[in-house]
């Protein structure tokens, strides 16, 4: 569910991101693109990991697959936007097929299975040289516009994707689908007993978690102009996305957006200030998150924090 305040906050956030090219330099615009892209990923993951409670690590497989489908299509002369749509459809179909097999597993086994999918995708892409270029990666024809225009264009693309996935999140959370997914998260057997078609619901959630990740991957490939298997299927990214959602608040609509934005900003700060130690600092953020913010930023009771700051600890809220 999303409140009116939440909707207004999201709208303000979109406007802030969209207006960055007007007043900020290209580095900030690039960060804004990354924030919108990771918001798409985190919001998509929310369908399977947040609403349904299945610990999926397959997001990056969909991202990489989308990037490769888009890149290969573009290299063969397909217009850019058509290539993105193609990537969306292929990744969606892949996720639906994969989901109907993989979602029979639960808990740890599902987690391991989804990690294995990422590994298999990466290995297949890196060894299928004739189509994917193998470990050398692929070059994608760049847009022949000025760098500023390219940045603005891709910022808008990612923002539109983010708004679509956000709207879809808000819609699902009100719809009987969202309710059914919530039941599955709480007790799958009981949900099955009361007549929810759990298999269908889970496959839908899994497909939704992949669809726009595929588009984002293809758009990312067109934006950066070069992809390779290690980058497109990075194990770090596999864990980053769930961490973002956990940071914001899993199962809420606004949480993934907040989580993605704060994570990208934190990461940029750590990269620029602690080059040697950025990975360790990210690790510490994760450990801190697990112990002190188990419900995410959205679940922090600001009233309690305020009371504590005022020294009124222990006041009933």
């Amino acid at each position: 569910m999303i409140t009116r305040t939440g909707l207004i906050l999201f709208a303000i956030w979109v406007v802030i991101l969209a207006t960055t090219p007007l007043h900020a330099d290209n580095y900030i615009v690039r960060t804004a693109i990354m924030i919108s892209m990771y918001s798409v990923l985190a919001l998509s993951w929310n369908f399977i990991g947040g609403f349904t409670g299945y610990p999926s690590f397959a997001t990056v497989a969909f991202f990489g697959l989308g990037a490769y489908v888009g890149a290969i299509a573009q290299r063969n002369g397909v217009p850019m936007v058509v290539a993105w749509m193609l990537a969306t459809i292929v990744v969606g179909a892949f996720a639906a097929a994969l989901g109907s097999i993989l979602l029979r597993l639960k808990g740890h086994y599902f987690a391991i299975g989804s990690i294995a999918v990422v590994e298999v995708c990466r290995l297949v892409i890196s060894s299928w040289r004739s189509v994917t270029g193998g470990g050398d990666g692929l070059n994608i024809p760049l847009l022949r516009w000025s760098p500023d225009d390219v940045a603005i264009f891709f910022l808008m693309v990612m923002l539109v994707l983010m708004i679509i996935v956000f709207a879809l999140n808000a819609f699902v959370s009100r719809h009987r689908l969202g309710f059914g997914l919530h039941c599955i998260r709480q007790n799958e057997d009981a949900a099955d007993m009361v007549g929810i078609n759990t298999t269908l619901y889970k496959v839908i959630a899994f497909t939704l978690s992949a669809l726009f990740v595929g588009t984002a991957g293809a758009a990312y490939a067109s934006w950066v102009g070069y992809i390779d298997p290690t980058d497109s299927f990075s194990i770090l990214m596999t864990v980053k996305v769930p961490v973002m959602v956990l940071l914001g608040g899993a199962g809420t609509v606004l949480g993934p957006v907040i989580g993605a934005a704060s994570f990208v900003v934190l990461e940029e700060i750590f990269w620029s200030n602690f080059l040697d130690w950025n990975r360790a600092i990210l690790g510490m953020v994760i450990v801190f998150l697990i112990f002190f913010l188990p419900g995410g930023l959205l679940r922090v009771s600001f009233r309690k924090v305020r009371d504590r700051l005022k020294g009124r600890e222990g006041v009933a809220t």
Partner: protein
Amino acid sequence: MDIGQILVNGLVLGALYACLAVGFSLVWGVLNVINMLHGSFIVLGGYLTFFAWHSFGIHPLVSLPFVALLLFGIGYLVQYLFVNKVVTAPVLTTLTLTFGLDMILYNIMTVFFSATPRRVTLDLGTLSFFGITMPVDRLFGMALALALTGLLYYVMRKSRIGRAIVAVRMDRAAATLMGIRVNHIYAITFGVGALMAGAAGAIFAMVFPITTNLTGMYIGKAFVVCVIGGLGSVPGALVGGLALGLIESISGHFFGPQHSLTVGFLVMLFILLVKPTGLVGKRGYE
């Protein structure tokens, strides 16, 4: 290459894989935690062995017990201070936590040891029998790996601690009622997992070059071995390890070595779907 050589290669590799995965399997089976730190523990064990040999001239066989004990201590502390706090939380929480800890350990290792591949070279020559050639250090590593795995099996079967670990794995609540301190047993299990990882790392350093970039690959192998063999038991890890070794050497021969990893993962996915308890796992234990 004839079939004997392929089989021997597979079995030697398989014994190493069994040793690599047995600690991971134990932690997963008993604590229900996927320990993403395992790969870094292996590399840490390997590095410590290498530097003891390289800087102080200590033979790997001498340093191995100390390295293993040190890792036991680290594992015990990690479990006691961090993982125990969230051990009953959903998979995502524990997996993410150990991944975060792994990022810290990985970073520390890269800064202090750098990512250069390093290897202990013992130069023991090669051995030929029935037309099969095998470097002696590799055979030596295999014997050591099997001996350690066997020792762990013996400890789990015969010692008081081992029986307590098995009891906690079977039924946590009942074990508590029998007077077993579950948190202590959890920490010991995690410590034993780290100990086996350290020992495996020490053996690996004698056979293959070892570098921090390999942590992901080791974790991947541990996943595959656990799923193929079955979780949380020493025989499971042994069967899974040998199976994976054979799968890799046979598929490497027929499809080329670059595909052997893919085949391993595909077999794992297949087993996950067909028989999630693994080849020798028991139902209801997962």
